[in-house]
């Protein structure tokens, strides 16, 4: 939390500097703007024991789990929404303890949103939708206090509340940022605005670095003012195979390819070898996708 110019880091450097083994890490995106480039780099650097928080844990969380990077997951779902097909690695971890057991804690999306809002506002709790009787109210693993119930002081019965979530580190994909860290998103933002504000440290992964003059043209789209941001990563196509509003479409084919390969442990390992390790970095990953696919998916040719 400071003003002025922020470090513009590569994803390699970011993971090296900010995400050691065991890091508590909120990853942004809600099956769109999932920063896949981050997950791949965590896998390349062989991270272990991560505590991953992600509202919508898609292919990205599945890969981290499959690659053995994760000890704990807090999420509202983990899946491969195209098809849909199962998040096979996630299933293998929870059903068979492969490649190793993980701990899972769950919140519904609305409760997760409110917990992040409480964290963002530094308030002691937020009320949420009634969830008493639901499984994730009853079933608690490593967050025994994930829900509370209090009497409404103004009358009218019990109220579910959630405590604040204040992740140690957040990494979020955004459409664009400037060198001061001012970060802008377009399209739907899900829980991202409060989620970014809830994080103690915040890194944005931008499709492009723009002049501050461009930021000033659309000040309503600034989801994180520069003073909230610790570092900026500029990584085009960072969210592939999920979509980035205004920049590129969801890659259905790649979702299906991953679904097919991750069906078995061997297939998943082949995916990791071919698509993550052998490509070296995200630019390599995109190069492997090929120009034709990239051209098919691309939406925005120029700036906003």
């Amino acid at each position: 939390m400071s003003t002025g110019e922020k470090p513009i880091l590569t994803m390699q450097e970011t993971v090296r500097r900010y995400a050691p083994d065991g890091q508590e890490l909120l990853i942004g995106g809600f099956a769109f703007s999932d920063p896949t480039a981050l997950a791949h780099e965590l896998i390349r650097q062989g991270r272990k024991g991560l505590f991953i928080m992600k509202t919508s844990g898609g292919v990205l969380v599945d890969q981290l789990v499959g690659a053995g990077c994760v000890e704990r997951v807090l999420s509202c779902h983990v899946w491969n929404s195209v098809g849909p097909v199962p998040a096979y690695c996630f299933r293998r971890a929870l059903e068979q303890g492969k490649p190793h057991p993980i701990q899972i804690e769950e919140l519904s999306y609305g409760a997760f949103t409110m917990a992040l809002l409480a964290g963002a506002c530094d308030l002691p709790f937020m009320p949420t939708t009634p969830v008493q009787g639901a499984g994730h109210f009853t079933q608690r693993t490593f967050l025994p206090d994930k829900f509370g119930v209090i009497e409404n002081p103004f009358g009218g019965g019990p109220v579910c509340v959630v405590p604040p979530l204040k992740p140690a580190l957040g990494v979020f994909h955004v459409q664009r940022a400037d060198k001061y860290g001012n970060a802008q998103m377009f399209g739907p933002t899900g829980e991202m605005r409060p989620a970014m504000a809830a994080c103690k440290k915040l890194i944005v992964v931008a499709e492009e670095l723009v002049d501050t003059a461009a930021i000033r043209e659309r000040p309503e789209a600034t989801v994180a003012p520069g003073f909230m941001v610790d570092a900026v990563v500029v990584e085009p196509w960072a969210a592939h195979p999920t979509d980035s509003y205004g920049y590129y479409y969801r890659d259905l084919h790649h979702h299906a390819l991953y679904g097919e390969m991750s069906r078995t442990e061997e297939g998943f390992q082949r995916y990791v070898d071919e698509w993550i390790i052998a490509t070296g970095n995200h630019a390599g990953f995109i190069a492997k996708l090929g120009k034709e696919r990239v051209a098919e998916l691309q939406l925005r040719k120029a700036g906003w």
Partner: protein
Amino acid sequence: MVIVRATRFEQMFLTGARRIKDGAVVFVGFHWPMLMARIARRLHAPHIVVVYENGIVEDRLTPVLPTSPCDLAAAEQATTCAGSLEALYMWLGAGRVQMTIVEAAIVDRYGNVNTTAVGPYLQPKVRLPGSGGGTELSSLGRDLLLVSASVNKRSYPDRVDYITSPGYLSGGQERTRLGYKPGTGPQTLVNPLGIFNFDERGEMYAAALHSGVSPEEVRASFSWPIKVKAGHAVLPEPTEDELIIIRRELAHAKERYYLLPQEFVGLGSDKLL
């Protein structure tokens, strides 16, 4: 002249779509509800406004079927892109949404939906994705319509192993007692067999069946002795025009990587009717 009769899977889309009133604000959950809303737009409800949990307001037929509410194909040319606080609380929770549609892969006698885990939570036999916004849709949604494409007993246990999206819980007044709002809770389930409603105790019963579906067949599909309304209605079959639309949309869904039931897997556009 109907050359090929509608399958029950197709029937389900027609039956569900018909419940969507033109001009309504509809909160649409993942998967078949999205296709159902799209079919309703093609059939009789072009002016529905669909809202999704991430804050998208989709006010017209999108050029392509989104593969999930977060496929931003749904957001292209949207009139509103907001966030989950707006969608789940200000629109859904505050009752600004007139109808809510949720897929109910596994649903029990009291309308509780499980999309989390079959078997013990910590050692599941089958681990499913989890809640997403499904809990809120069932907790807060008015005129809640559940959709299940299954006719398999395992999809209709007496009690789900895990309540992801709360229905009437253990039945009776438990839902109200725990602070859930009036007007919420599942109203209807649509599946390939027909339409199911919930009685005053929150128990599901068959209210109207698709053509050719017998009460015995219904009972065979549920794990508990489900009641079938005496003198239940028989739901109308699709007209040829309706069936063309449904099949076109199913074929389009396939192009969009939706996994269709086996009978549709080989379906090409030449086989539409």
